[in-house]
């Protein structure tokens, strides 16, 4: 990857990171790559749409590197993850509680339960107490525990503990064939399967310098946008359920079911799995263009009416307004991504910053985003994006219908794998998704991925400036994240 600059000393690395942050570049996260003797840490930045990294190689014997948390709070979770998975300690960092897993590797490579355990010491105000909420919560939810500090009603502090769900997906990537690795990518965050398969495939395609046939790029866009619609509708459904809007819940969950069925009609899988592969897609959509267009039109119309009505329902809107407000400053400091950032006025979108597949040929809808930063703003963002997604899907279908003859309609390009490493990205429904893929002898050596869910959950505790217990469900739904993608 030629976008990577390597620093020779920890001090130089810290300085390089500081310089980028001061010049306003967006911090995208720290991704690690494990070698036999050393671990390479790359701090990624978005410089006006260009992705670049500052690299520091940390010898295992040294085992320490300078913490970046004092430079950006967004680094804190990455440093806990690096310690959990690779055993390196961020020097000068206070919060070393395990994040993604409590199973730590001893120096010899043997597994042990984390030595640092339990909640970090904190001073509780008079009358305050800590409630562990989860990992098994009321309702059908992914497992996560929130340590909520409260004095009864006000939420004073929230600390997410995500390690319950850690499956060790990164370990399964090692040595996998590229074909199997795509399937693993799909399962690292199941509700964003298409985005994960895309980001992984983009990395492989960049490594071998190959694009995908135009029709394949269009099919990818259709699947990716349907996935976005499904996720956004899911977030609204959860809000309707939490707000006790029974008819809205019934209507919108019916629409979500229709979106899932349309996705299954296209490829046989309700989550768009086994469609995206490096080099293109596995095959032609199973629905004829005319029928697809008709299905998309009717779905778009129905959703538009329901969502419009919901945003005009005072009892719903009032519940979200002013709830879980994230200031523009908070969102910038944590370098948030996706609808969470867009609700507070940061409009970055990878589909426009670093367009991929068929996006450059499809006219993007310019969406006017709200900037209030509350749960309502995040939901308005989603409603606008659903509309824009349908617009993009319609355009893609029009273009695909134009490829009439068999010769033009090629779905995949053969790829001859080479050794090396590349980065791929996609705009998942939750926001920017990054994959660094390293191939050796035709199989995967390492994969480091960073989901938007991981990056955004770190600022969840900041979303309770003056909120109470009963706001919890609304704020959580407005983030629209998947815990599988955080702790995978």
């Amino acid at each position, binding site marked *: 990857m030629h976008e990577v600059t390597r620093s020779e000393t920890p001090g130089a690395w810290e300085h390089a990171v500081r310089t980028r942050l001061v010049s306003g570049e967006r911090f995208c996260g720290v991704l690690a790559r494990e070698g036999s003797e050393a671990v390479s840490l790359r701090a990624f930045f978005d410089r006006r749409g260009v992705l670049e990294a500052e690299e520091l190689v940390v010898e295992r014997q040294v085992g320490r590197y300078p913490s970046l948390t004092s430079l950006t709070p967004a680094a804190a979770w990455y440093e806990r993850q690096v310690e959990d998975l690779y055993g390196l300690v961020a020097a000068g960092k206070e919060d070393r509680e395990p994040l993604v897993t409590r199973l730590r590797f001893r120096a010899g490579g043997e597994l042990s339960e984390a030595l640092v355990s339990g909640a970090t010491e904190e001073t509780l105000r008079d009358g305050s107490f800590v409630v562990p909420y989860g990992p098994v919560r009321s309702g059908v939810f992914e497992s996560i525990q929130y340590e909520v500090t409260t004095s009864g009603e006000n939420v004073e502090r929230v600390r997410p503990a995500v390690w319950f769900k850690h499956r060790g997906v990164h370990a399964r990537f090692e040595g996998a064939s590229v074909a199997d690795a795509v399937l693993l990518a799909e399962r690292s965050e199941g509700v964003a399967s298409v985005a994960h398969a895309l980001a992984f495939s983009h990395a492989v395609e960049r490594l071998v310098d190959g694009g995908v046939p135009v029709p394949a790029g269009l099919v990818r866009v259709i699947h990716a946008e349907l996935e976005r619609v499904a996720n956004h509708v899911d977030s609204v459904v959860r809000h309707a359920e939490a707000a006790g809007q029974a008819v809205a819940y019934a209507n919108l969950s019916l629409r979500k079911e229709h979106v899932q069925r349309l996705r299954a009609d296209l490829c046989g899988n309700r989550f768009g799995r086994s469609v995206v592969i490096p080099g293109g897609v596995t095959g032609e959509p199973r629905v004829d263009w005319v029928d697809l267009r008709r299905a998309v039109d009717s779905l778009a119309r129905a959703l538009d*009416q329901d969502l419009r009505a919901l945003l005009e329902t005072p009892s719903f809107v009032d519940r979200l307004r002013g709830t879980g407000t994230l200031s523009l400053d908070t969102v910038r400091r944590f370098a948030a991504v996706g609808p969470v950032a867009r609700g507070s006025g940061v409009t970055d979108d990878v589909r426009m910053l670093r367009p991929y597949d068929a996006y450059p040929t499809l006219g993007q809808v310019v969406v006017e985003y709200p900037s209030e930063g509350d749960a309502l703003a995040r939901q308005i963002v989603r409603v606008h994006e659903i509309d824009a997604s349908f617009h993009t899907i319609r355009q893609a279908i029009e273009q695909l219908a134009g490829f009439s003859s068999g010769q033009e309609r090629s779905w995949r390009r053969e790829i001859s794998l080479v050794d090396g490493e590349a980065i791929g990205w996609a705009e998942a429904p939750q926001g920017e998704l990054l994959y660094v893929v390293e191939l050796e002898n035709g199989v995967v050596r390492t994969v480091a991925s960073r989901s938007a869910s991981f990056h955004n959950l770190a600022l969840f505790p900041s979303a309770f400036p003056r909120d109470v217990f009963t706001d919890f469900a609304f704020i959580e739904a407005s983030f629209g994240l998947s815990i599988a993608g955080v702790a995978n």
Partner: protein
Amino acid sequence: MPWIMRGLRHGVVTSRYPRLGDGYGDGFAGGVTVRGDVADAAVLDLCIADCPTGAITVEADGPLLDRGRCVHCGRCVDHAPETFSYSPNFQTARSGREGLVVPTVGEDDASLAVLRRRVAQTTAMFRRSVHIRHVDAGSDGSDEWEVAALTNPVYDVQRLGIFFTASPRHADLLLVTGVATVGMRDALLATYEAMPAPKIVVAAGAEAISGGLIGHTYASLGGVDHVLPVDVYVPGAPPTPFGLLYGILIAVSILAEPLGGTR
């Protein structure tokens, strides 16, 4: 007021299943099946080598496919369509792990019958109404969408006396998704132990049954039955809402599993 009209506008969208068949569900490819024609040994070998979860084996009678491992990647169907094909059948859940291997052979019927009788005895009193506690023991997140879909107006499981409950104290049936991670082991056990007897456990999805693509890792135990005794297994990656509903219905003995082998 506008919402009342909106609610009425659709008419009835709820499936008639299980009282009647469901046109959509019956046509949905719920699992891979093994057909009569056996492909060349070389092609079968390719299928076995290419299967990402080792779901295919070859016995003297021909190839066998373990739906408890199958993640629906479709590679075997591409390689050997004469042998493997998607079957339009969502009623793939079984009590007993062996029942997921297709085609099942007749001689297993006696042991299966014993298993089913045990399940039926346990759940006789759940037939009129069953309360479910769901636990995610390390899923990829998609399983929860499908479980949650059971309460949407299409599946509307409340009409069948099936309810999701917040407290394990009120639960009859534990529905588990995910690979069973080391991190969730204690919480899963605690939930199970908090449930009053009699109780029944349903493992939903290839990951919950066998670990699926994740399998065993340092953090994954590779299936719920490494932690709890599982009564009913629902294959799928993830299982569809219809597949889950069928699994719940056989778990509470409202529906009977087919005897005499599965295709």
